[in-house]
């Protein structure tokens, strides 16, 4: 369903005929699935529709004008940076305007004050390259090099490099937000002057509303500009090597080095991470799932399964690895010092160093994150946890235990407890739980597993990042608030009284559960009668 001719003409006058289309073929190209992050599932099939129109603004002023037209003509709209974040970044209602922000792709580096100003269409890898040219770096979130910097900062924005670099919300500086009614909000130092160098400003810090733990998926307006902090790296060039698909960054070994350690057990893993953080060494400390090793080794899907077929519950349960990235931030001597301290720690915990390639493709530029889809074709990270190191690992085990119930359709990974690592020098522990399936199979079990994880967390009183708009809000809100959901909805009503910005988020998962018949057995909570249908 396209938008009215009158409103189309008004929108066209804002951006020009070249940057707007309601042609059904053009709109089909923006379909959410059937492949992609969290795609091929019930949520994607039930909740997403092809946009009625696509528009590509170039400036903040154009975004403001577009949003005002949407409010005037009651056109629901969805901000869209790259579309990589699966169904939740695509229209959920008929006749929506998809605001494709790819033309707003500025990357400007302030070399004096070490921050970058980016537009919502800018992705990570060019930003990282510009930073590294100047001896700096940023975290490229687990979403990978292709993720929009701003969208990722608002949503997730962490990776193994978060061991050293602070969590993303600490690195958001001056930010510009077009509210759902078109009003412009300038945050941080931008509120007072045309310089985004600082994140805080007089009055309430609205970054919390914008981001929270993992953001509200574009239902509170459109961020049109953000300054992000750059941190000092080291001066040696990381030289790109190889030909596709085997490309990687060659590491200057006296300044940057990965070392993999095998440790005796989970306690040793946690202790090693804790001690490394306490000693304030290393640039990254992580444990990744065993099957990622098979992904890295395999040249194709079939080879992955050949390699994975050799593993078993026993080998998974005995897989205790700690990957450490050493960075000589200030000098080669710095690196040597860190390595000596690291070896002392590993000696204490019984860790043994294993040969490790002097290259990186995964975490400094995150070039291979799309490889997550190679083995099954479908993937989602069902939850993220930021806790203490010891708590984070327990959390992964709870997920692994629940997952057995839904395997298949989930990929047989023998209860792998996921990815965990140190954040902010061990002050936090991070756990991420990833699931994989083949979307051609019956995926009802994946939809059920997703909501069942929320119930599990409620039962165990564990707090996670995706309990808000990613789960039925009327399931999680009363249990975590007791009025968390009411607050979130009041904020939504206050900023977007017409609910024009990405409806029905933040109630989208509630609506999904109501619409999907196969979700009935799991639904045992109350929802109001006026829930959007």
């Amino acid at each position, binding site marked *: 369903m396209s938008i009215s001719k009158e409103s189309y003409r008004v929108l066209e006058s804002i951006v020009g005929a070249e940057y707007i289309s309601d042609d059904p073929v053009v709109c089909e190209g923006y379909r959410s699935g059937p492949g992609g992050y969290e795609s091929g599932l019930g949520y994607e099939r039930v909740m997403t529709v092809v946009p009625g129109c696509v528009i590509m603004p170039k400036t903040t002023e154009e975004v403001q004008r577009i949003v005002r037209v949407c409010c005037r003509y009651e056109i629901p709209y969805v901000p869209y940076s790259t579309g990589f974040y699966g169904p939740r970044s695509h229209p959920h209602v008929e006749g929506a305007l998809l605001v494709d922000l790819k033309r707003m792709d500025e990357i400007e580096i302030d070399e004096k004050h070490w921050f970058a100003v980016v537009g919502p269409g800018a992705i990570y890898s060019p930003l990282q390259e510009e930073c590294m040219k100047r001896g700096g770096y940023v975290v490229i979130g687990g979403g990978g090099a292709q993720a929009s910097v701003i969208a990722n900062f608002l949503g997730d924005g962490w990776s193994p490099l978060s061991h050293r670099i602070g969590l993303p919300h600490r690195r958001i500086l001056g930010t510009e937000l077009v509210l759902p009614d078109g009003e412009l909000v300038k945050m941080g130092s931008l509120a007072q002057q045309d310089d985004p160098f600082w994140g805080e400003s007089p009055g309430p810090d609205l970054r919390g509303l914008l981001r929270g733990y993992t953001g509200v998926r574009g239902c509170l307006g459109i961020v049109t500009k953000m300054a992000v902090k750059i941190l000092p790296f080291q001066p040696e060039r990381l030289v790109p090597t190889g030909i596709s698909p085997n490309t990687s960054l060659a590491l200057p070994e006296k300044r940057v080095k990965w070392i993999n350690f095998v440790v005796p057990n989970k306690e040793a893993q946690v202790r090693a991470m804790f001690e490394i953080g306490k000693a304030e060494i290393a640039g990254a400390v992580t444990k990744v799932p065993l099957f990622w090793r098979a992904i890295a080794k395999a040249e*194709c*899907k079939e080879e992955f399964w050949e390699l994975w077929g050799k593993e078993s519950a026993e080998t998974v349960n005995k897989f205790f690895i700690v990957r450490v990235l050493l960075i000589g931030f200030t000098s080669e001597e710095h690196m040597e010092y860190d390595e000596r301290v690291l070896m002392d720690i590993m000696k204490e915990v019984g860790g043994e160093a294993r040969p490790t390639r002097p290259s990186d493709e995964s975490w400094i530029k995150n070039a291979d994150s799309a490889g997550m*889809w190679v083995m099954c074709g479908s993937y989602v990270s069902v939850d993220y946890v930021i806790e203490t190191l010891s708590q984070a690992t327990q959390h992964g085990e709870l997920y692994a235990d629940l997952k057995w119930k839904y395997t298949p359709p989930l990929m047989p990974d023998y209860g792998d407890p996921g990815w965990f690592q140190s954040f902010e020098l061990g002050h936090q522990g991070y756990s991420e739980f990833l699931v994989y399936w083949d979307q051609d199979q019956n995926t009802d079990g994946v939809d059920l597993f997703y909501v069942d994880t929320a119930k599990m967390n409620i039962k165990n009183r564990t707090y996670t990042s995706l309990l808000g708009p990613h789960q039925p809000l009327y399931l999680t809100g009363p249990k975590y608030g007791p009025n968390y959901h009411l607050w979130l909805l009041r904020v939504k009503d206050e900023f977007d009284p017409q609910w024009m910005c990405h409806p029905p988020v933040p109630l989208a998962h509630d609506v999904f559960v109501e619409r999907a018949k196969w979700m009935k057995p799991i639904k045992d909570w109350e929802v109001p009668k006026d829930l959007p249908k």
Partner: protein
Amino acid sequence: MAERQTKIDVKKLFKESPKTPVKLDVTDLNNFVYDMSRCIKCKGCTWVDHIYMPGAQFRTKCPTATRYLFDSYGANGKMRIGLALAEGKLQWTDKLLEIVYADPLCGACDVGCKRNLDLEIGLTLEALRVKAVQDGVGPLPAHKKIAQNIEKDHNCFGAPHNNRTAWLAEGKINPAKKADLLYFVGCSASYVNPEIAQATARILKAAGTDFMLMPDEWCCGNIVFSVGMIDEARALAQRNIEEVKKTGAKTVLMSCAEGYRMWKVDYPKLLNCSTDDLGFKVVHLVEHVDSLIKQGALKPTKPMDMRVAYHDSCSLSRLSEPWVPWEGERGWMGMVEPRLTRRRGTNGVYFQPRDILNAIPGLELVEMPRTRENAFCCGAGRGTKEAFPELALWSAHQRLEEVKHVGAEALVSACPWCKNNFAQAVKEDGNSIEVFDISEVILASIDR
């Protein structure tokens, strides 16, 4: 509670799973439904490999997605559109035809996707064009004119067939009547770029390599194949291969990258055989010359004081890996059997032209930010220049920005289509960059 499987038997799971027959056959779009349905919108098809990402400038490698901007023009959008078409949810319209054809099919998307995944993006795009022809809506009028030219005069320009060998007399070239090596000149070098044909012939002569021509050379069929006219392309492939076999040539040499890809990859694809089964070797001039230089049979001794950027012609580089026919079945987790070795662009002709240029005294070769498998296509190939000249020229201008960025005085490529398109862009731009085919540079560097 499901039973906790502590070990799986992958072979058994595959064997017991439902199977779908699948072929790498572009005449049926249904062969690529899996590939279209697994696109994850990472846009690896559009971005330069993130490892090689040069920075804020020159981020993308897909001319079409960069020019038209809507996702629908990128391979990620086309996978969704193609799937809707295959499922009967979309009908052909002028816009759909434009999206399918405004694309040089340069392979950047295919290689980019296969950096991380196993999806056949390039073949899917070819299959979409074949479907357009099968459904009676394709190709575009400009393409039909080319097909008519080929049918009437055996060349894509509609020039008199008798003029095909005019470059010989102009250049005072006398090919052998019989030789192991056959030089397939191609339409461009025969009619538009005789300097390339003449340079190629003189290089071969200087190296002491006897060569013959096809007694009656016809168009290779690159454009008709690329726009989906599969029957016409197959007929040309059969005819040309037959003609080569009659000559007894052991090697067919091209100076045109488009022709090289056509002979090496698409003829076997059309005839359901492998490149190795053609009965002769297919080489590009740069492979032959690189080998001659390394053997000492050809010495580039004349200095050329010039700072040069080399442009990887798509059909010589990422699109040129040999073809091996494959058919099998897809089962559990999307695995296929028998094992399929995917063409990922890894083994394209990348180092040979660079080694040649680096062997020339005084010549300074500089790499552009987007290079090898990440090169930004000139935009002229595979029917684009004919139907979308504005896109082709726009792409060439984008590439020239890189030439200026690295401060090169000249741009060298190994395909007449690239040369002509760049030359037109330079002329329009009014700048002083010189554009050469690599055959001209080689010839200028050797003692004859």
